[in-house]
């Protein structure tokens, strides 16, 4: 059962992530990113992190990716034409990127093959329990938590300022909803 779910969602995740990278239309790429993220969330649940799975859906798909779609629609980015802005060494760049990615994957495979990781033992309730996670988060990791909160605040303010229309284009508009959403 677990294997079945894993295989299904792993395949889906791989396929959809390929679509994310390959599709020429950013809307489709973004939609398949949603699928990828959802699959990863399912894998999180399988790995005994239901809270993270839920958060993944809530934050990533529910907010961040919506933001992407929003910007795509706002800027009206259409399908890319071919090579209208090619630069010297574009082919080299692509070859390097793809070759590098393949080499990297093979290296990881090699490392995993040589590492001899142990078998998984059964999932423990302690790992899954939400209470333990929250206790860690608000006790041991309180300072990082606060810092991340501060970071988000700064990011929101920064995003609002950056995305605001420059004043010479007319009177400054109200707070930009895209900037303020997160």
């Amino acid at each position, binding site marked *: 059962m677990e294997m079945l779910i894993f295989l299904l969602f792993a395949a889906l995740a791989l396929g959809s*992530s390929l679509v994310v990278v390959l599709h020429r239309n950013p809307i489709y790429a973004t939609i398949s990113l949603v699928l990828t993220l959802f699959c990863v969330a399912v894998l999180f649940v399988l790995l005994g992190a239901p809270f993270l799975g839920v958060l993944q859906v809530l934050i990533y798909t529910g907010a961040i990716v919506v933001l992407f779609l929003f910007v795509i629609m706002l800027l009206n980015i259409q399908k890319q034409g071919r090579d209208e802005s090619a630069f010297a060494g574009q082919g080299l760049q692509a070859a390097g990127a793809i070759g590098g990615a393949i080499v990297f994957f093979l290296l990881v495979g090699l490392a995993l093959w040589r590492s001899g990781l142990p078998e998984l033992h059964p999932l423990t309730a302690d790992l899954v329990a939400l209470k333990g996670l929250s206790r860690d988060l608000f006790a041991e990791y309180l300072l990082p938590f606060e810092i*991340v909160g501060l970071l988000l605040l700064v990011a929101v303010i920064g995003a609002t300022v950056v995305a605001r229309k420059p004043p010479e284009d007319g009177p400054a508009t109200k707070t930009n909803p895209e900037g303020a959403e*997160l």
Partner: protein
Amino acid sequence: MSVPIHWYLLLAAAMFCIGAAGALTRRNGISIFLSIELMLNAANLTLVAYSRLLDVRTGQLVVFFVLAVAAAEAAVGLALFIAVFRQRHTIDLNRINLMRW
């Protein structure tokens, strides 16, 4: 039958490589952003997998922080795209190359 942890790690590596290749080859700023999100997710998956393997919560906590930072990154990054688009009417990175000699 339980899934060997290698499979998760390999899946994560594959996703990471797809994301990396995408980020390095695509020209559209948004696409690059999406690829980066893929790479982030692959890293998250690895963290959670190791968290499961070692039976400690630290990996999950780190993923929590990664989620928050990703949210901040997306907000600022997209705002930058909007600002750049206003100025240059494109987010094709081949055309945004002011930082050169």
